[in-house]
């Protein structure tokens, strides 16, 4: 089953590649074992499963925020702990991670800035790092345009100067999505990014992200506790089960479910 699916989608190298990865806590307690997972450009993969099973930890591991206990995690051609190139990875955490006291535009510009390549080459590593950092403080007009486009796509143009703390939960979620779209990453990691949204907002967010992924050959890995919703949007659905869904299994495994 899986082979057919992959063959249909394969365009180039996988964006995410996990080989024999064990994910868990710092004290060495394993949550999930993943023998093999590859995500290809243009693919939308959803991970579902009961709460506390390690879905978010898997996402954080791919984002490079947590180390895996063992195995190799490769993202955008670089093996973690080496980070992917600047702006290649977009991450929408469940708590969104927006700068609450700053405006919508400021937040989206952070993403657009991350997507901009600014490279001064210098033989001294530190001078190069420092000058690039200083240069990145000055956003280009292109970044500004990208931010405006993303904000418009998320239908937030009237809120462009509003601080985040004055927005509703759904509007904040749209800002986080706009930030990722303005960044134009090769891989989007989204943690329950459709939860607590009304139908109309969900439609806007989902359409924005899916269109971006399909048009730009990016990949989307989304964690979703609602299996039926995951089925509607994903090309592939992986379910992490610790025995709560299928009582016959003995260890935490990830199974691929037909969509």
């Amino acid at each position, binding site marked *: 089953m899986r082979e057919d699916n992959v063959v249909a989608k394969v365009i180039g190298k996988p964006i995410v590649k996990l080989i024999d990865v064990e994910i868990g806590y710092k004290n060495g307690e394993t949550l999930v074992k993943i023998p093999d997972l590859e995500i290809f450009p243009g693919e939308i993969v959803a991970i579902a499963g009961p709460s506390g099973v390690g879905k978010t930890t898997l996402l954080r591991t791919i984002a490079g925020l947590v180390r895996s206990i063992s195995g190799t995690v490769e993202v955008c051609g670089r093996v973690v702990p080496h980070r992917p190139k600047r*702006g290649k990875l977009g991450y929408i955490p469940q708590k969104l*991670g927006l*700068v609450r*006291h700053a405006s919508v535009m400021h937040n989206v510009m952070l993403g657009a800035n*991350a997507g901009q390549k600014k490279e001064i080459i210098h033989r001294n590593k530190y001078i190069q790092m420092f000058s690039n950092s200083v240069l990145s403080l000055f956003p280009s007009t292109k970044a500004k345009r990208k931010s405006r486009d993303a904000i418009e796509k998320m239908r937030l143009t009237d809120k462009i100067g509003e601080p985040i703390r004055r927005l509703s939960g759904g509007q904040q979620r749209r800002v986080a999505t706009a930030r990722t779209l303005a960044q134009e990453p090769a891989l989007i990691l989204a943690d329950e990014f459709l939860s607590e949204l009304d139908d109309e907002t969900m439609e806007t967010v989902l359409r924005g992200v899916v269109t971006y992924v399909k048009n730009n050959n990016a990949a989307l890995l989304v964690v979703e506790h609602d299996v039926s919703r995951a089925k509607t949007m994903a090309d592939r659905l992986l379910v992490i089960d610790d025995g709560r869904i299928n009582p016959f299994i003995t260890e935490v495994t990830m199974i691929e479910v037909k969509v």
Partner: protein
Amino acid sequence: MITLKSKFISLSLILIMFSFSILNGMVDDWGRLSGGIENLFIFFGESLWPPDWSVLEPQNYPVCTTYPLFDFTCSTAWIGMTETIKIAFVSTIFGSIISLPISILAARNLSSLSLSYFARIVLAAARSLPSIIWAIFFVILVGFGPFSGVLAMTIYTVGYLGKLQYEAIEGMNNVPLESARSMGLSKIEIATGVVIPEMANSLISQMIFMFEYNVRHGTVIGIVGAGGIGYYINLYLKFLQYDKVISYLIIIFIVVLIIDFLSISARSYFNEEGDISKPSWWDLFIPKMKRVE
């Protein structure tokens, strides 16, 4: 059964008795205490009271060069107090400009272990000496006057404000930092784009608090010759004109009270939720209880 309450009472009693035993070791004659109260009344009645308000009148020295609107702006009290406030203001501004990058380096959630320890040692060194000791140091280096006061207070501000700032930064929500890091933003971008806007309210509120603190302490540094109203207090103390000293002290008390109030009102605009709750005059004496959320 030993309850928590009885434990608390017995522990308090032990601490109080322990303090008294230490005090007893330091005091050789308790009889001096009765003489002390008598002395206080004599001192207060003969030397301190009534205050000599001539300090609010124009003096021959310092020479008044401009023609002011009000006469008292040529008085030593006015000149000294405004100088103290000026020193406090300038050193708060410069101190916070210097301390902000150091505190970002000192915050463990933003920089590496070695860098943060280095930055913390710098801040601790600036903070370890009180501003009056720094003032003595700078009076020796650059001579008498408000300039040495500004330098002394700036260094102390860097140390004190830096500690407040890095503790606030370390306490900030981790999720915005994580998402910025995974996007690939550089450390300078994270500091300017995420940390400073997110912490702006508390940073400004700490700055205002520091200004208020510097005004209070700026009255002292003049005693060692570093400018401000303390210079005149020291002068009249030397000439044993205590009635003038008490009028300076009353003026300082009133000004500090006003600045305290202004500081509380200004900080109420920069509290965490950003909504405005104006304090009343009573809050100076009876602070408002914080709402538990």
